[in-house]
């Protein structure tokens, strides 16, 4: 474990006994940080007094790089934001460009976007749950979750050739139409998924050890979730019924019949349970989208390679696996964005760590981190 003791601060307690506050540095290369995040933890015995998350280890300056590229050249950069959910960043960015340039996307492309993003949600939640399970020692659940994620990644590979950085959603549509037989493969995957999810749900969240580790740990109240800008399963686990697909609907989501999964207690268990239950809803949406989708183009015909939107600014957001993922774009009329900003849900959710972990033990901190499902590519940008 890359955990080192950084310094000791001796003090005297009210009873006159010497007490030491331990400052333990967790990370930046630590398996339970889900990437390269560093946490400076102040401990009283084994109890967390304060946490200072130190981020920026993966900061590549994507917002600055975007100012130097054309609108189309920025799409591969957005792949590198949330690297377990590239489709979301692609789509959020493309929606902002389309809003800025006033483009209307063909319907088949909208359906393909919904299908890939719901599949991505399944893959991303499987990754998050698997990692959260592995952190608590439940490695079998990790393998079960990764099995399902692998199937989604294979579907994406046959769709666009890439397993991680898809570059699939483009301004004005999607890069390619689905290959022959792809829809049937997707349909058989989502039809088989609920049984696999039942298995995982019972194995991980029905397990008495996992319940003991997760229940009552890192409780987030609904008021705090709203005030701190939390979104996605992190907010919904606290009972905040807010899902952009339902409450700020975009694309073809108004035509879909699905439920918003909402937790009650706001602890790590409810957040993780929301992720499992959301995968059932995603499978439902994909099934409906495949039935509703009909032929047609997948790109706006004759769209110039060099987009030059009129000066102005636009913000658009989608519901990613981690929450409200928004892209703010400013155009000055040139072929390159004047400014791009990514509103990252994982960034807002990670800011909750000091609030959630005070009073819990160091080993609970790992569970809390896992339940927030941080992806540092998106946090650091």
């Amino acid at each position, binding site marked *: 474990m890359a955990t080192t003791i950084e310094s000791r601060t001796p003090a005297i307690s009210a009873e006159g006994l010497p007490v030491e506050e331990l400052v333990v540095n967790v990370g930046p290369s630590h398996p339970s940080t889900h990437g390269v995040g560093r946490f400076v933890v102040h401990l009283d015995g084994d109890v967390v007094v304060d946490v200072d998350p130190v981020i920026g280890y993966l900061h590549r300056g994507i917002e600055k790089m975007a100012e130097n590229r054309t609108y189309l050249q920025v799409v591969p950069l957005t792949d590198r934001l949330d690297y377990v959910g590239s489709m979301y960043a692609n789509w959020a960015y493309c929606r902002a460009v389309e809003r800025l340039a006033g483009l209307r996307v063909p319907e088949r492309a909208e359906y393909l976007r919904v299908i890939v993003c719901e599949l991505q949600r399944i893959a991303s939640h499987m990754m998050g749950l698997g990692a959260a399970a592995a952190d608590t020692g439940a490695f079998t659940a990790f393998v079960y979750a990764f099995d399902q994620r692998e199937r989604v990644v294979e579907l994406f590979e046959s769709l666009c050739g890439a397993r991680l950085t898809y570059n699939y959603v483009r301004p004005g549509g999607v890069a390619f139409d689905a290959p022959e037989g792809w829809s049937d493969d997707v349909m058989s995957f989502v039809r088989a998924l609920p049984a696999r999810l039942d298995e995982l749900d019972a194995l991980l969240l029905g397990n008495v050890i996992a319940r003991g580790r997760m229940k009552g740990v890192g409780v987030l109240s609904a008021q705090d979730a709203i*005030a701190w800008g939390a979104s996605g399963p992190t907010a919904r686990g606290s009972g905040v019924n807010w899902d952009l697909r339902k409450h700020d609907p975009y694309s073809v989501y108004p035509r879909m019949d699905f439920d918003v999964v909402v937790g009650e207690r706001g602890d790590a268990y409810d957040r993780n349970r929301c992720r499992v239950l959301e995968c059932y809803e995603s499978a439902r949406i994909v099934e409906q989208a495949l039935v509703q989708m009909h032929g047609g183009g997948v790109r706006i015909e004759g769209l110039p390679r060099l987009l030059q939107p009129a000066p102005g600014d636009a913000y658009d957001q989608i519901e990613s696996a981690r929450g409200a993922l928004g892209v*703010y774009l400013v155009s000055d009329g040139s072929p390159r964005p004047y400014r791009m900003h990514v509103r990252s849900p994982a960034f807002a959710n990670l800011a909750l760590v000091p609030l959630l972990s005070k009073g819990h033990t160091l080993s609970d901190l790992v569970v809390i981190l896992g339940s927030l499902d941080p992806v540092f590519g998106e946090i650091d940008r």
Partner: protein
Amino acid sequence: MTSDEMLELIGRISAQHPRLYPLFSHEFGDAVVGVEPAELLETAVDLREAGFDRLLMVTAVDRGEKFVVVYRLQSRALTAAIFLKTQVPRSDPHVASLFGVWPAANWQEREVFDLFGIGFDGHPDLRRILMPDEFEGYPLRRDFEMPGMIRRPDYI
């Protein structure tokens, strides 16, 4: 919320709060309201009272002599979202912190401070967040230069 309802909402909020002035409305389907930096904090409290309970985003845009500080607010109850914008001079860029209104401003304001060098008065913990503490300069300013940074030629 339709754009007509949005216009009506903005009109209603502006009438109640004379400090607020609509810059332009729903040019891209978005309502934008501007405010003087001195009155930002009071306006933010008013907007939260009006139902905008979520602060989604804080960022800034470098406009040469001025920085535009951009806030994105959303309301689940009103099913509406608006931009709140204010301008600060480049020579002395600082604005009131909204941490007391929406705690979500905590890290977002630190990020703007880190990358633009805009100060947030009253922020409890204003220090760099993405760049190293010893880093000099503010990378997202348009005039930021660094050895090894390549600017693409304009003809692309």
